C-alpha cells in the first residue's frame, strides 16, 4: 500500500476516534448536567465512566494523528481532518438524536470548505 493512502487511513482513524471522544464527552456531560454550577458538574463527571472512555479516545486519536503526520505533508493531513465536522454532525444526529436543520448543514458545509482552503493555503 502506498504511503499516501496509508496516511489518509490513519487520518480517518484519528478523526473517527476524536469524534467518538467528543460523543463520549457529550454523553457524560448530558448525564451530569444540573443547575448547581461547575463544581457540581465536575463532581458528577468524576463518576461518569464515559469521561474516561472519551479521554482514552483522544489519546488513540493523538497516536493515529502522529502516525498520519509521519506519512503525509501537513497541507494534506490538515484539510483531510476537517472530515471530523461531518462525522460529528452525522453521529450527533444518529446517536444523540440532535435535530440538524438545513441551516446547520449549510453552516457545517461552509466551515468544511473553509478549513480545506485554509489547509491548502
Amino acid at each position, binding site marked *: 500500500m502506498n504511503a499516501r493512502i496509508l496516511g489518509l487511513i490513519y487520518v480517518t482513524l484519528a478523526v473517527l476516534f476524536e469524534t467518538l471522544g*467528543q*460523543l463520549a*464527552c*457529550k454523553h*457524560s*456531560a*448530558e448525564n*451530569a*448536567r444540573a*443547575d448547581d454550577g*461547575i463544581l457540581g*458538574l*465536575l463532581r458528577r*463527571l468524576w463518576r461518569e465512566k464515559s*469521561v474516561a472512555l472519551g479521554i482514552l479516545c483522544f489519546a488513540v486519536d493523538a497516536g493515529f494523528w502522529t502516525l498520519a503526520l509521519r506519512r503525509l505533508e501537513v497541507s494534506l493531513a490538515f484539510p483531510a481532518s476537517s472530515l471530523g*465536522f461531518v462525522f*460529528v*454532525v452525522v453521529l*450527533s*444526529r444518529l446517536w*444523540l*438524536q*440532535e*435535530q*440538524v*436543520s438545513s*441551516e*446547520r448543514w*449549510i*453552516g*457545517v*458545509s*461552509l*466551515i*468544511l*470548505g*473553509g*478549513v*480545506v*482552503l*485554509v*489547509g*491548502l*493555503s
Partner: protein
Amino acid sequence: MQSVAENIAITHQRRTVWFGLALAIALDTITQMCWKSAVEHVPESLGLWPSLAYAFSLPLFHLTLLLFLLQFVNWMTVLAHADLSYAQPITALSYVTVSAASIIFFHEPLSSLRLTGLVLILLGVWFISRTDHRTADSTATQQEGTFPAEVLQ
C-alpha cells in the same frame, strides 16, 4: 409569568453557552500559541523520547498542559448545555483567531486563499449560531426554568 421566566431561562442558557464557546476559542488560541512557542525551544536534533523529555522540562509546556485541563473543564460545561452538532462546528472559529494571532505574533503571511477560507468559516459559524443551541431534549428548558425564577423572586 411562567413564559417570561422560561424566556429568561433560555436567554440565560444561551449566554452561558456563548460565553463558554468564546472562552473555548480563546483558550484554544492561547494553547496553540504556547504549544508552538514551547516546541520551538526543543532542539530539532533530538529523537522522539529525548525531545518529549526536553518538552516536559519547559515551563511553557507545563502552562500548555494547564491550559488543556482548563479547556477540558470549560468544554464539559458547554456540552452540558448545548448540542454537540452546534458547539463543535462553532469552535472552527479558532482557525480564524489562530491565523490572526499567527499573523500578529509570528508574522506569518496571509494569502488570498487563506483569507477566502477564513471568510467561509466565519459565514458557516454565523449560520450555525442562528440555529437552536439545544434540540436533543425538549424538557431541558422547563428544568432550567426554575433557576432564573428563583432569581426573579
